């Protein structure tokens, strides 16, 4: 019946090699930004915004600068593979981290597949231009096959390692910038030769007004997301505290003007064959708009532009393959995805399995990808949602850990910069619904699947990762779904007291008893040290289990080891889904930061169980129990708990409701009636009822007037046990009526039982969510 579990050995850490310098990561960012954004989306966006596309690109530059500052701050302080996903994990509670990673992984993968398809389309165009064609293969299949092939090539390049990736990326990016440079210079030369052309092209500047500009901003927002790719490299960068923030700003400095100039030249230098407005003509050519523009004014326009497009899509594919791999690698390492995602190849030191699986996702999307602007909008929305999360996370990270991190850059006007960024990004994401409703539906579908995976897989893995190790577990009956009462055993002298209370609770509802002893190891030592002390605590546990069996309870005994007892108790409540925790209390802590005591405070705050805290020697069954009731509706719960503790002959429970003196007799009577109604289902005839069926009164109701604290203290003198309830808030926030609870507790002499009743699951989760933002991180790393 006994099973001994060894404390989990710490997992070996995996590290990536630091090969990349400032130039490398700036080029990685530029490569990610100058890809489909310029070659594919310029034509489409021109059709949406008109000549005011240049305003859309500029305004996007301003909006993106705000988030870039946040990325510079976090990328310098927490330079790890994972980027935004990692920071959301640090800065936001619950499933936010998983969802951030899940969105980021998909966003980068879908962007990668877009670039692979873009490359294939441009290559097919090139082959067509030089008269080779598609070798008789249908165009659609030929394009898909090329896209898959180029995706495989870049998966292999990424497998070779960061330095090779950086080198390949740098060459491709430099070539691409050179071609775009020729494109811009040629266009400007044409404009300078015929200035009147410019006036004509820009005459109807914003044909769709501000709406068109905002829609184009949303559609092309993905173009500037390269800083997300830069920070993904953080773990492989030399001196990341300086280089990462610099690269973020340098990349934007290179890219934003390029976008504006390309849009300016596209619209200003083109003369449409049919005399229609240039922006309209570009919009009609969609992703090939830029190519058609280059054919008009650029020397060797088609060829150079095709080469540039091929370079661009290749480098963007390289960058997105890299970043989607790093996100999934980080998720695997954090146990949000299966462990295989976190594996690093021993020779190349690259996350080869994460790469293979990300590659499979990219290829899968290549094969099944829908229309291009829907995909772009979907990727935009995902990045916007991710950036919004990061903008929230930067605030909590600064608040919780700011003084413990080495920042290379600190966002100015904090926290207003991230707050403004959140508002603007939310607005852009909503505008995209107008551009592509389908994209929003795809996003919602992906998010929904992510939530399911988190609920059924990742959250459980997280819990497994975080729990304190169980050294010994003796089960007489295992039923984790049924009713259970947890009794942490710390002091052998108080065990009888606690077991008595647990027995009374189990009288109300049959279930099992969970006995827990926590071996507490100092912070300086690893928890594995606790194994040496198991034999010392076993006799206490065996003795407690025997006492429980004598009371006809079915104990399940656990010995855990951890740095803090509260963590072990909370883990046990979660694992066994305990309904009650019964704990001893020596009296109010002298620490002003605590309410009851540091351990009990944490257990009340972080475990959704009813917590019963016992002070003094409670003799059960008790004869006279006083239960002050704050409101008649609380009477049922408290009386239900007290009922099995007052089963002796002549025993009674008095429900005391203290009201103000201003209440009229009629109102007092109404309160009494309400209280009586609340406990009516509990007030059954006890076993010792008279033979004639006349009920002996077990519950008494008293409505007293006066000050709450002195009235209760005065009444308590006549009772064997004072049982007081408290709302969760009052335990945490002394300033609410919890003050009264502890003033009473400090004034009474009789044994005392404080009961904190648990809330609904939803309310608990919401409360935990907000508590996360409220709390500062004071704990020491174990």
């Amino acid at each position: 019946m006994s099973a001994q579990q060894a404390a989990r050995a710490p997992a070996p850490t995996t590290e990536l090699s630091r090969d990349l310098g400032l130039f490398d990561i700036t080029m990685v960012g530029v490569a990610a930004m100058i890809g489909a954004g310029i070659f594919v989306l310029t034509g489409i966006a021109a059709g949406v915004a008109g000549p005011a596309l240049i305003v859309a690109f500029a305004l996007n530059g301003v909006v993106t600068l705000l988030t870039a500052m946040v990325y510079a701050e976090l990328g310098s302080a927490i330079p790890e593979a994972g980027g935004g996903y990692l920071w959301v994990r640090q800065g936001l509670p619950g499933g936010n981290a998983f969802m951030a990673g899940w969105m980021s992984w998909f966003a980068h993968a879908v962007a990668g597949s877009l670039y692979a398809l873009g490359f294939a389309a441009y290559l097919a165009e090139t082959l067509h231009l030089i008269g080779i064609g598609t070798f008789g293969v249908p165009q659609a299949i030929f394009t898909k096959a090329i896209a898959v092939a180029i995706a495989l090539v870049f998966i292999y390049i990424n497998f070779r390692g960061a330095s090779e990736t950086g080198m390949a990326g740098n060459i491709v990016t430099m070539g691409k910038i050179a071609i775009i440079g020729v494109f811009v210079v040629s266009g400007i030369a044409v404009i300078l030769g015929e200035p009147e052309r410019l006036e004509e092209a820009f005459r109807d500047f914003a044909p769709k007004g501000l709406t068109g500009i905002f829609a184009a901003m949303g559609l092309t927002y993905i173009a500037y997301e390269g800083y997300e790719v830069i920070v993904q490299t953080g773990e492989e960068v030399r001196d990341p505290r300086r280089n990462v923030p610099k690269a973020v700003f340098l990349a934007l400095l290179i890219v934003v003007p390029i976008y504006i100039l390309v849009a300016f030249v596209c619209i200003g230098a083109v003369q449409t064959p049919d005399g229609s407005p240039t922006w309209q003509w570009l919009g009609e050519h969609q992703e090939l708009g830029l190519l058609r523009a280059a054919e008009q004014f650029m020397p060797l326009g088609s060829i150079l532009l095709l080469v540039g497009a091929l370079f661009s899509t290749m480098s963007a594919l390289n960058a997105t393959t890299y970043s989607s791999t790093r996100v999934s690698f980080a998720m695997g390492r954090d146990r949000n995805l299966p462990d295989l995602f976190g594996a690093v190849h021993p020779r190349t030191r690259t996350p080869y399995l994460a790469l293979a699986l990300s590659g499979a996702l990219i290829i899968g999307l290549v094969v099944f990808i829908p229309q291009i602007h829907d995909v772009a909008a979907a990727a935009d929305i995902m990045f916007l949602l991710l950036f919004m999360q990061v903008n929230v996370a930067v605030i909590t990270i600064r608040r919780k850990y700011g003084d413990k991190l080495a920042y290379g850059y600190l966002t100015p006007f904090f926290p207003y910069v991230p707050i403004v960024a959140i508002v603007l990004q939310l607005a852009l994401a909503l505008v995209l619904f107008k551009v592509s409703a389908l994209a929003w539906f795809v996003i919602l579908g992906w998010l929904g699947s992510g939530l399911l995976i988190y609920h059924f897989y990742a959250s459980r893995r997280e819990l497994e990762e975080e729990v304190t190790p169980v050294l010994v577990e003796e089960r007489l009956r295992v039923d984790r779904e049924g009713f259970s009462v947890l009794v942490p055993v710390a002091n052998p002298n108080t065990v009888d007291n606690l077991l008595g209370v647990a027995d009374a609770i189990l009288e109300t509802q049959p279930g099992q008893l969970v006995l827990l002893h926590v071996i507490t190891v100092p912070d300086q030592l690893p928890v594995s040290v606790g194994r040496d002390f198991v034999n010392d605590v076993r006799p206490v546990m065996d003795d407690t289990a025997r006492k429980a069996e004598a009371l006809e309870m079915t104990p399940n005994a656990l010995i855990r080891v951890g740095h803090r007892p509260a963590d072990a108790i909370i883990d046990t409540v979660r694992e066994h889904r305990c309904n009650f925790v019964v704990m001893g209390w020596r009296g109010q802590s002298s620490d002003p930061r605590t309410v009851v005591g540091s351990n009990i405070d944490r257990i009340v705050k972080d475990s959704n169980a009813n917590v019963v805290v016992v002070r003094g020697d409670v003799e059960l069954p008790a004869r006279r129990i006083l239960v002050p009731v704050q409101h008649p509706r609380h009477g049922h719960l408290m009386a239900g708990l007290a009922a099995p503790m007052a089963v002796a002959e002549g025993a009674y429970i008095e429900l005391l409701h203290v009201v103000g003196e201003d209440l009229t007799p009629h109102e007092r009577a109404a309160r009494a009636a309400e209280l009586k109604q609340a406990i009516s289902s509990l007030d059954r005839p006890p076993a010792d009822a008279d033979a004639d069926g006349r009920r002996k009164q077990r519950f008494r109701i008293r409505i007293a007037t006066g000050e709450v604290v002195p009235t209760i203290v005065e009444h308590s003198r006549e009772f064997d046990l004072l049982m007081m309830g408290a709302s969760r808030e009052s335990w945490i926030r002394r300033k609410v009526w919890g003050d009264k609870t502890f003033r009473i507790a400090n004034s009474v002499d009789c044994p005392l039982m404080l009961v904190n009743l648990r809330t609904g699951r939803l309310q608990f989760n919401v409360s935990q969510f907000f508590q996360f933002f409220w709390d500062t991180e004071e704990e020491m790393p174990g």
Partner: protein
Amino acid sequence: MSLKDLHQAGVLLPRDEWGVHDLHTSVNKPMLLAAMALGLTSVVLMYVGGGGTLTFIAGGLFIGFMAWITHISIKAVNVQAAQFAEEREHFREEHSIAQPVTEADVVETEDTNTASAAGPPETPAE
């Protein structure tokens, strides 16, 4: 989602340096405000210009804004690094730390002798 994660990632400052470093930005705020004002004004003028000369002048200004704000930000990174080093040096001088403790020095040990030396385990306080 904890200090432990940051500790494992090796990005935490040594414990004795917690709270030592200033969390105020090293970005030159007046300059940044001026640059942002230029950037936003240039965007507005691009739109107001309606595709005329003003639009293109404003476009040029916007590119100037990008260069200016990049300069301000990169300068802030350099200032931040110098300030950080200065704060660290000052802190060590104040505390006469000859050999700084780094994250690499904080290693967990399985040495049971150390455990014994630390005494028996604690029991929960409550």
